[in-house]
């Protein structure tokens, strides 16, 4: 305890410790937490940076890609000098510069049905920032089956949406979105994305992770938060666990993971079971 509460610790995290809701106890919970960020891109970048700044003990980063020039408009973990290098390596360097106390675990791989379960099980919370539907469903299924809470996030053009899933307690991604989409869907590469909204949404996801770890406030469970940055409208729509959800419903049929075939992109207008409207 004495080493944990030295002056450097107290000063670095003083703005957290000052909060009655966090205090020393909350900051120590953050230090002992293990959070996985899946995707070191638009959403994963701000999420990882804020989690590192907050002093998360173990920060896992999963991404198989390398940095390219078009990423730099919004993927703020990476810089011009990182073009061509593995995103997880670039991320690890940047995180170490922000906070060397954070233990970074790199997963330089595409997480598949065969591998993702063992990975997510090592963590207390997962921040999902992937750019394709098959991976979104895979992360959802893996986390629900492993009982690991996670934050789902997606952005496209000027719109973002996020929800927090507490397995066994709140709606999962399948409850809200239904079956995975088939056919062509727009992607950020084809339809574009306003860079700064990646920061808006990824930061919300980091806050959700830290709230879960510290027990502060109320998680964004059973609620889909959406924003349209053009008018800066934010909407929070209640959602509910679907009793007929094949994963977390009353009679689940999905009991093991399978790689999904399907189109890319986390955002395609109104999802099938969205209980609100933009």
């Amino acid at each position, binding site marked *: *305890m004495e080493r944990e*509460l030295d*002056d450097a610790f*107290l*000063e670095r995290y*003083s703005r957290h*410790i*000052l909060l*009655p809701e*966090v*205090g*020393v*106890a*909350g900051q120590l919970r953050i230090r002992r937490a293990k959070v996985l960020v899946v995707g070191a891109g638009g959403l994963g970048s701000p999420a990882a940076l804020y989690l590192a700044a907050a002093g998360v003990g173990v920060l896992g980063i999963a991404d198989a890609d390398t940095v390219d020039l078009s990423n730099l408009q919004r993927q703020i973990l990476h810089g011009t000098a990182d073009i061509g290098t593995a995103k997880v390596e670039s991320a690890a360097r940047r995180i170490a510069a922000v906070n060397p106390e954070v233990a970074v675990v790199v997963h330089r791989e595409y997480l598949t049905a065969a591998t993702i379960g063992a990975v997510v099980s090592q963590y207390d919370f997962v921040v999902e920032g992937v750019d394709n539907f098959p991976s979104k469903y895979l992360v959802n299924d893996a986390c629900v089956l492993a009982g690991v809470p996670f934050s789902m996030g997606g952005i496209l053009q000027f719109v973002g949406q996020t929800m927090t899933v507490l397995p066994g307690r709140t709606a999962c991604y399948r409850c809200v979105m239904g079956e995975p989409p088939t056919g062509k869907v727009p992607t950020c590469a084809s339809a574009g994305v306003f860079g700064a909204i990646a920061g808006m949404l990824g930061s919300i996801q980091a806050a959700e992770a830290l709230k879960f770890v510290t027990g502060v406030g109320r998680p964004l469970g059973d609620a889909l938060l959406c924003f349209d940055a053009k008018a800066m409208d934010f909407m929070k729509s209640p959602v509910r666990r679907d009793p007929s959800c094949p994963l977390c419903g009353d009679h689940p049929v999905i009991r093991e993971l399978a790689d999904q075939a399907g189109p890319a992109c986390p955002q395609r207008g109104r999802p099938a079971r969205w209980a609100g409207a933009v």
Partner: protein
Amino acid sequence: MTVFQLDITRYCCPLTFVKVKAQLYRLAPGDILEVRLKGAEPLENVPATVVREGHAVLGIESLGGGVHLVRMQKMAAGA
């Protein structure tokens, strides 16, 4: 009940009351903490923090030279 001392005369706010908060975190309910602080800002912030955290300020004594001794008691397990 044990009495502890903490000297924060060389620190500036907000680290002053963060250190007090951290020290209180380590104590058991009922323990006494005697804090030496220096300057007007810590004199205002530290007792206010202690009360806000739910603990008791037992007394404040001037030691001269802008230094004060603030005696406080931990009331319950807190952050």
